[in-house]
């Protein structure tokens, strides 16, 4: 595809349910990032992959959050036992390489609402 795609666009979960959010990066992009964005705030970093290797997961808020990118392309962010504070927009981004100067291309995000 032409850009980064994410699915689903909207997800409503009951507290305690597990959810899985998918990201399809731009083809050939080595680096993939997940961010969490609360209303009225800038995106906050969660985790980063270079190919299939998860190089940084320092932003994951708890061990309920897990991300993978097994074949170095599509990535899934899984949240177990969702809590109300997990409600946010989850953004995925990809870049050609992991170099500092590279721009990141963002998907439209998945809006997660936990009831």
């Amino acid at each position, binding site marked *: 595809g032409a850009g980064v795609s994410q699915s689903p666009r909207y997800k409503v979960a009951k507290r305690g349910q597990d959810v899985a959010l998918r990201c399809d990066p731009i083809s050939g992009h080595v680096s993939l990032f997940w961010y969490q964005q609360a209303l009225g705030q800038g995106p*906050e970093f969660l985790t980063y992959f270079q190919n299939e290797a998860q190089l940084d997961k320092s932003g994951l808020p708890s061990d309920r959050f897990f991300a993978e990118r097994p074949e170095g392309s599509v990535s899934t962010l899984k949240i177990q036992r969702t809590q109300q504070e997990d409600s946010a927009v989850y953004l995925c981004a990809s870049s050609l390489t992991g170099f*500092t100067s590279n721009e990141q291309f963002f998907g439209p995000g998945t809006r997660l609402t936990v009831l």
Partner: protein
Amino acid sequence: SQKIEQNSEALNIQEGKTATLTCNYTNYSPAYLQWYRQDPGRGPVFLLLIRENEKEKRKERLKVTFDTTLKQSLFHITASQPADSATYLCAPRKYNQGGKLIFGQGTELSVKP
């Protein structure tokens, strides 16, 4: 701890005027600074990157400055148009930051016709 601050209040200006948005950072020595635009319901879109050894960068109606002494970047949109209305995010980046972006909270710009 490192901190990135952008104008928290929305900026309302008249069409045709120049919009100036501020990004201040503390406890930080970024090598680059990126600006992104975000429209409601969409992901951020990259606009400009400025390096620490560049004082100013221009792209069409956009101009970014980077003052490492003041620890500040200014983002200007000249001849503003209603279509420029969006939230603008700054993201200073250090050399050893890895790939991740650390964003300010963003400034919402509204350009009235």
